[in-house]
């Protein structure tokens, strides 16, 4: 039986360092190659030694697919391709291909230049890695090799995020990456067609959450920012340079415009201007509204939002600052946080998910005293707010996607075990499909049951379709009989006659003849006619013919009459038939196996 195997090397019952191995139809595919924000040691990257103990991965993987540019999905890519060793194709969408190397370089700088780590990938390695990337377009069917094909769908999570449909023969897997089922201010909603994969591998970050309406959340957010500004406080919003940042910028920009607010909004420099430029050039990946109006007004050209300078943090008066990174684990956002943490008038709004181990995660869990590097502690007095703006599907969205794709099996990754457990129960109950949630390094195996594609001769097909009745009804099932010829790699279904012809075989006719004697004083012809009338009255529903050549045919049984030489009254009936060529009407629905006809 063919099998599909799925092994998470990361993101198995966890969020971070997404990396999932899939074996399907003899092909091995790596889905995402991310890093973990919560670790600074070996655990930062997936354990590639699972694939092979020694050496390069090229011969073990047919391709690598990256779903989007977030580092927990692509952060380990240069390490994998350049340091472990992989030379095969890496697939990602154009925006991901454009943005991913910038985030990788940024990540490298923080790790190597600031933290002083060695044995890390270099800038050159990032460049070499990106040379192996093959860009993907939405809905384009990419033939990785003769058998393996992949197709990307819009995922909505960040610019360029994609879900992928992976197909080998008639077996298929869909990997969602991170996705969002509700359109937001700058992105559209994820969509997939009814592709009925054997396995749907879905993220489950918000497995148990059903988020309230987006409008409420936005109003809440704006209210909090506004209140804080009104009382002269400073608002810090830690974000990643691309993604939610643009969403919140659009939100604040329109709010400032409408309310005619004067307090400055800053965006930490560097990445961000560049980031907005990417959004302008990849406007086809944003939502309908922005795409429609971009000629008149490009939503990513902000009037109120200005670049941030380090010195502004000490300026008096209210301000709003977007700073990177999003989980307060390093960089500018952490520096500003340290500066502002002591004042209760200030506020930090965490707009997204924070991985365990980060300061973001700690303060969200109510920790008010933080141990910093060098044994110093930091008292957290400012207000801490959490607003889920990260664009992941919630429980409702995940169920919606399952309804869209109609998978035969479900597998959850990129979520917390306890929450997954809950969702798994719900999925199994609602859709009656198996749902798996393997831990890292644990393999899930499902057997698939592919149907066999066969070439049927058009003659046979048309003949069988025509037999459906006087008016062929395409919806009605019909019986069909033929011979399957298996030659090399081809499977051909043809009529038995054609099979004989094609294989150069001769037909062998098996005939039976049986003599029956009876007494009848009439002439041969009259006897035959009497037999004809009799059969006609007895055998209703059969074709009975009296042929001019002196035979009666019941379906294909031939009856002849001759007088015996000695006695004219003794008639000899010759019944002759070919091996089981009698038509039968099957009124019982059952498989028309040969048995019935051989009786």
């Amino acid at each position, binding site marked *: 039986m063919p099998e599909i195997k799925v092994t998470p090397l990361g993101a198995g019952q966890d969020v971070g360092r997404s990396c999932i191995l899939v074996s399907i139809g003899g092909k091995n595919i790596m889905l995402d190659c991310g890093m973990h924000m919560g670790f600074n040691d070996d655990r930062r990257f997936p354990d590639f030694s699972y694939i092979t103990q020694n050496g390069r991965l090229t011969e073990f993987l047919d391709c690598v697919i990256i779903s989007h540019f977030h580092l927990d999905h692509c952060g380990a890519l240069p390490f994998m391709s350049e340091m472990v060793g992989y030379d095969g194709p890496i697939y990602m969408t*154009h925006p991901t291909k454009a943005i991913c190397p910038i985030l990788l370089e940024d990540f490298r700088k923080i790790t190597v230049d600031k933290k002083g780590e060695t044995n890390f990938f270099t800038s050159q390695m990032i460049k070499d890695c990106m040379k192996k990337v093959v*860009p993907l*377009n939405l809905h*384009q*069917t990419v033939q990785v090799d003769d058998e393996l094909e992949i197709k990307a769908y819009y995922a909505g999570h960040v610019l360029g995020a994609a879900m992928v449909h992976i197909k080998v023969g008639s077996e298929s897997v869909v990997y969602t990456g991170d996705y969002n089922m509700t359109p937001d201010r700058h992105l559209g909603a994820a969509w997939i067609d009814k592709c009925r994969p054997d396995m749907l591998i879905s993220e489950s970050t918000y497995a148990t959450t059903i988020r309230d309406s987006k409008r409420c959340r936005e109003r809440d957010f704006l209210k909090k920012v506004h209140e804080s500004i009104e009382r002269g406080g400073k608002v810090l919003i830690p974000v990643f340079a691309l993604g939610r940042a643009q969403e919140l910028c659009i939100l604040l920009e329109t709010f400032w415009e409408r309310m005619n607010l004067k307090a400055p909004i800053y965006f930490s420099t560097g990445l961000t201007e560049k980031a907005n430029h*990417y959004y*302008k*050039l*990849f*406007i*086809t990946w944003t939502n309908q509204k922005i795409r429609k109006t971009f*000629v008149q007004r490009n939503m990513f050209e902000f009037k109120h939002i200005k670049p941030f300078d380090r010195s502004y943090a000490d300026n008096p008066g209210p301000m709003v600052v977007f700073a990177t990174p999003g989980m307060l684990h390093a960089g500018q956002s952490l520096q500003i946080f340290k500066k502002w943490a002591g004042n209760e008038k200030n506020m930090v709004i965490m707009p997204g998910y924070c991985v365990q181990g980060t300061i973001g995660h700690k303060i969200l869990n109510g920790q008010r005293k933080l141990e910093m590097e060098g044994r110093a502690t930091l008292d957290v007095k400012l207000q801490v707010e959490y607003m889920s703006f990260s664009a992941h599907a919630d429980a409702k969205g995940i169920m919606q996607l399952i309804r869209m794709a109609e998978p035969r099996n479900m597998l959850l990754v990129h979520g917390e075990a306890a929450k997954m457990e809950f969702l798994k129960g719900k999925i199994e109950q609602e859709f*009656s499909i198996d749902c798996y949630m393997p831990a890292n390094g644990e393999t899930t195996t499902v057997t698939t049951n*592919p*149907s*066999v*594609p*066969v*070439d049927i*001769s*058009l003659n046979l097909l048309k003949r*069988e379709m025509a037999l459906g009745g006087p008016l062929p009804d395409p*919806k*009605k*099932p019909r*019986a*069909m*009989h*033929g*011979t*399957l*010829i298996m*030659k*090399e790699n081809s499977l*051909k279904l043809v009529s*038995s006659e054609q*099979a004989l012809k094609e*294989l150069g*075989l*001769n*037909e*062998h*006719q*098996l*005939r039976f*003849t*049986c*003599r*029956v004697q009876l007494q009848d004083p009439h002439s041969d012809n009259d006897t035959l006619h009497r037999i004809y009338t009799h059969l006609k009255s007895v055998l209703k529903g059969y074709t009975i013919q009296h042929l001019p050549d002196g035979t009666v045919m019941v379906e294909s049984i031939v009856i002849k009459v001759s007088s015996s030489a000695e006695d004219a009254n003794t008639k000899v009936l010759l019944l002759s038939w070919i*091996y*089981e060529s009698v038509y*039968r*009407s*099957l009124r019982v*629905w059952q*498989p*028309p196996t*040969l048995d019935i*006809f*051989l009786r």
Partner: protein
Amino acid sequence: MKLYCLSGHPTLPCNVLKFKSTTIMLDCGLDTTSVLNFLPLPLVHSPRLSKLPGWVSKDGTLNLEKELKECAGRVFVDSQPEFCLPEKELLDLSTIDVILISNYHCMMALPYITEHTGFTGTVYATEPTLQIGRLLMEELVNFMERVPKAQSATCWKNKEIQRMLPGPLKDAVEVWTWKRCYSMQEVNSALSKVQLVGYSQKVELFGAVQVSPLSSGYSLGSSNWIIQSHYEKVSYVSGSSLLTTHPQPMDQSSLKNSDVLILTGLTQMPTANPDGMLGEFCSNLAMTIRAGGNVLVPCYSSGVIYDLLECLYQFIESANLGTTPFYFISPVANSSLEFSQIFAEWLCHNKQSKVYLPEPPFPHAELIQTNKLKHYPSIHGDFSSEFRQPCVVFTGHPSLRFGDVVHFMELWGKSSLNTIIFTEPDFSYLDALAPYQPLAMKCVYCPIDTRLNFHQVSKLLKEVQPLHVVCPEQYTQPPLTQSHRSDLMLELQPPPMPYRRCSVLNLPFRRCYERVYILPELANSLVPSEIKPGVSLATVSAVLHSKDNKHTLQTSMVFPLLLPPSKKRKRVMEEPPVVLAPKPLLSGAVPLDAFLATLQKHGITEVKVEETADGHILHLQAEDTLIQLEEDGTHIVCDNNEPLRTTLRDLVLRFLQKL
């Protein structure tokens, strides 16, 4: 399989393919050359045009001075310009299932087809094709609607009258079917039927046919199409280019193994080298400016203009034109320039990598930023106050019959300092200029047509090896003006099948196979037996389901289970079909000795064997039964003894193969 040819214009095709129960329209080109017969539509009142004399036949019997005007010996219709539509009578257009669009120039007739014929299908196009196509339609509508003309000339179309008119009006075909331009409302409605597709996306049509667009290298989002089933493949090649300009390169390899290749949209300028033309364009432009004249470039708002601007971007500094203003005037100029920058996926590799930096892929962004290139929706408004001469103006329409270009013709035509440079190949420049004669302005003709030339196409066909080629008849003979140039035609073996407007071609196709899927349960129950080395046979008796043109074979009726549980549809158990008992075919021969041995094993020992011409007759004496064994048949003559007959039958069957 049939091909209905609705347009005779080789680069603005409109064909309908009937293939496996689907009806597919390939492109929807609008022949706009008809507008050359009309008088230009001036944006501001033109005393010259309004003073043109009306036309009266020489003998004075025919007076059409209201409808026809004479200018420099040519006669023009004074009416809103009209277009020559694709043929509407050849087949019922409401039966069309889908329309495949190959590039934005080949969709301009779409509203005529989708809006007034009962069309209910879907149009497939790539995103750039849709967006830029929309811009071009919008521009066309705008050109027509902003200078409404009350008069609609119809008398001249009368067959009897048309016969009497001077050429080329006399020879214009199907003038009574010519139509005015559509409205914006019709454009919007037509384009709402478009479904977007990406290159190499596989789109299923009713489960019967799969269509897929391929990059054709001609313009942003331009595509060739593959139309195929599991066994047959038709390639539709329309407007392709092998030159490296801005679009993604042409995908050639996917065209391989076609049964039929429909070839349209070759270059209209087979003897003009685009690179050479570009050079000439630049040098003429610079020369005129240096002499203090203005340059007018009549052009479409998208396409070659991007390449012209890119070329000028590099040329401006070296030619010392840094201070010369360049104007691009069109109602959609801004949109066209903006849209060109956002289709990174559809661009050539070089431009794609610019976006990764991130920088705009086309350098006209910089020309705009540095104020070297300015764009305006029309000559009215801001333009009139900012306009400086000498300058270069890019504006439409290339036919010179409507659009802002008409104004510049009137403005600059009288001075020999000025130059008009034709770059679009769609219109004969002499015809385009005819209603402006006499003209002092210089004319330069450097048509840039990047589409395949005959040399490239024969090389391409050699490579992709289609079984049959279908093409417009124009491609099967040298151009009329160059009848000695046998290199300017297609020479193929077998010769291409030519078509003309209103042709209906029977494409040489024989379908032999169809795909059927054997469900796993049935597949597992099959018992294959090896007949010859490497060849196995299995008898299949099953139930055939045909739904949405997909055929499956399964062991028994399980389809109530296939219904989604959520649907509360009550389905009465369908009446099982009347099954025709299959006639198992036997094959092989019964070997005498082995058969006798088997009989013996079953207690039949008294057998008399008699040799005949074709085999043997076995007389089973105790049973009074005859068995006639021959190479291709066995005949058992056995009277009323059913058990014996059954035994004998089974023994015979042991030696035979059943199909």
